[in-house]
């Protein structure tokens, strides 16, 4: 296993174990990633892709180990993180426009009561511009295409000035045009020094989308540049063995 070390990593995961009802979903993961990378998380169903993202977002409590973002632990690091939920978990009928959604990214900066400052408005305008949503700003979020919806959430994260983007299966259910659109937006973010961590179920096109990859199987199989990480040998190791679930259950048939 090759784990890249960065002189000044944005994200450091050390010995991370997370369990659901005492059954571990990910075991003793350690890796670190620097800024400016678009990192794909791969592995079979149940490998712990979503679990890893949720625990970095602070939604699940680690059983062992710790997570450092910009040298800080949660909850202090929360403003640096933008977690993009799976599309099914969003209520697309919610009474909010694209602009309103992006403005939510500024709430943390504006606090409870302070009205939006000029800087806040500029951040919102800049985010809408960057993701090609300026003309759609007044639309309700359901009136966007799938790719535009994903970009709207990325724009919110941009307005928040987050450094670490956690995306859970953002390409699921997108057609080809929308996928290409989203991939372009992800590349833009990486080129601006953001770190993106993206769970992804399909291995095809992985090399085009992600410069680094993490291959999981409940445990860390490999982590590093995409072509080496997703080598046939590593993939055999990740997909060829049953996911470790904590139960030593063997079915002798």
């Amino acid at each position: 296993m090759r784990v890249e070390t960065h002189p000044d990593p944005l994200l450091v995961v050390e010995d991370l174990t997370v369990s659901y009802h005492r059954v571990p979903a990910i075991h003793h993961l350690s890796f670190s990633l620097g800024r400016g990378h678009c990192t794909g998380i791969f592995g079979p169903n149940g490998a712990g892709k979503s679990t890893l993202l949720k625990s970095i977002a602070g939604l699940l409590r680690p059983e062992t180990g710790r997570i450092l973002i910009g040298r800080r632990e949660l909850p202090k690091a929360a403003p640096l993180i933008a977690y993009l939920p799976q599309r099914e978990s969003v209520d697309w009928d919610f009474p909010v426009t694209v602009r309103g959604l992006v403005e939510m990214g500024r709430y943390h900066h504006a606090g409870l009561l302070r009205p939006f400052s000029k800087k806040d408005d500029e951040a919102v305008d800049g985010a809408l511009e960057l993701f090609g949503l300026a003309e759609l700003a007044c639309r309700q979020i359901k009136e966007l295409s799938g790719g535009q919806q994903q970009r709207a959430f990325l724009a919110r994260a941009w307005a928040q000035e987050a450094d670490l983007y956690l995306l859970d299966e953002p390409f699921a259910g997108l057609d080809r045009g929308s996928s290409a659109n989203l991939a372009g937006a992800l590349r833009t973010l990486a080129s601006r020094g953001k770190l993106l961590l993206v769970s992804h179920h399909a291995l095809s096109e992985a090399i085009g989308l992600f410069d680094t990859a993490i291959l999981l199987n409940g445990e860390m199989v490999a982590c590093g540049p995409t072509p080496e990480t997703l080598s046939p040998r590593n993939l055999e190791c990740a997909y060829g063995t049953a996911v470790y679930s904590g139960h030593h259950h063997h079915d002798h048939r």
Partner: protein
Amino acid sequence: MTVHGLLNSITEPFSYAFMQRALLSCALIGFTNGFLGTFVILRRQALLTDALSHSLLPGLAVAAILVGLSPAGLLLGGLLAALLVALGGQLIARNSRLKDETAVAALYIIAFAIGILLLRYARVKVDLVHFLFGNILGVGDGDLLISYGAAALTLGILVPFQRPVLLTLFDTSVARASGIRTGWIEAGLLALIVLALVASLQAVGVLLSLGLLILPAATAYLMTDSFSRMLWGSAVLGMTGAVAGLLLSFLANIPSGPCIVLVLALFLGTTYLFSPRHGVLVRFFRGRHLHEESLRRWTGHEGHDHDLPGKS
């Protein structure tokens, strides 16, 4: 009827002290419930709230047995019973195979049954019908005080915390990831909703109190795509509907609770059909336009963006 007579019949209700109190009470609870209804609708908790309104009954009965019919006692009893059902439902859902809506439904109907039995043993002679359907003309100073308190608390808490509450409503897990204590916000909302339900008991009773919460918010939801417009619009609709319903009930000499709910229902029915953006009739007649738009896409006049809409 002459013009003078018509004017008289409209201004007449305002000349009675009991009617003035009733109108003020209606305006207050209509506003508070309408405001809170937005949160109920957006969290999809209309039926949970119905369960809560029913579970008030045993609390009211216990309070009536222990301290008689004082507004403060009723408030406390109702509040406790509803919170017990809500929290108990969560507890059962977490520890067993039962889902939370099953657990809450089971608990509330059990609580309701206990409430009906307990009311037989209340020291003062309590009319079940009074609790179930309310009696707006019997609003006392204590009831008014509760209405004032509910309105003040609701606005005093939710207006300053509007941003974190909005984030929690829109996406709880994202809000939690950004460091907001969503558990506290959810518990606070629940407590305010129960408070609003208790405040509207005297006016419309256990069974119809849900109408004040749900109907104006549902109406506003069909009218606008802006959260704050929905919030305040629903509050104003609730206030208008409650006052109009009460006046109508006085003029036509019919029961006030159903009258208020039906006026609010009229609002909802109208927007359901005619809302400019989400109305059923309006959407129906817009069909052709959408077809043309779709045709334009296929023939490729919007080539710069290949996204096709409507996949969410």
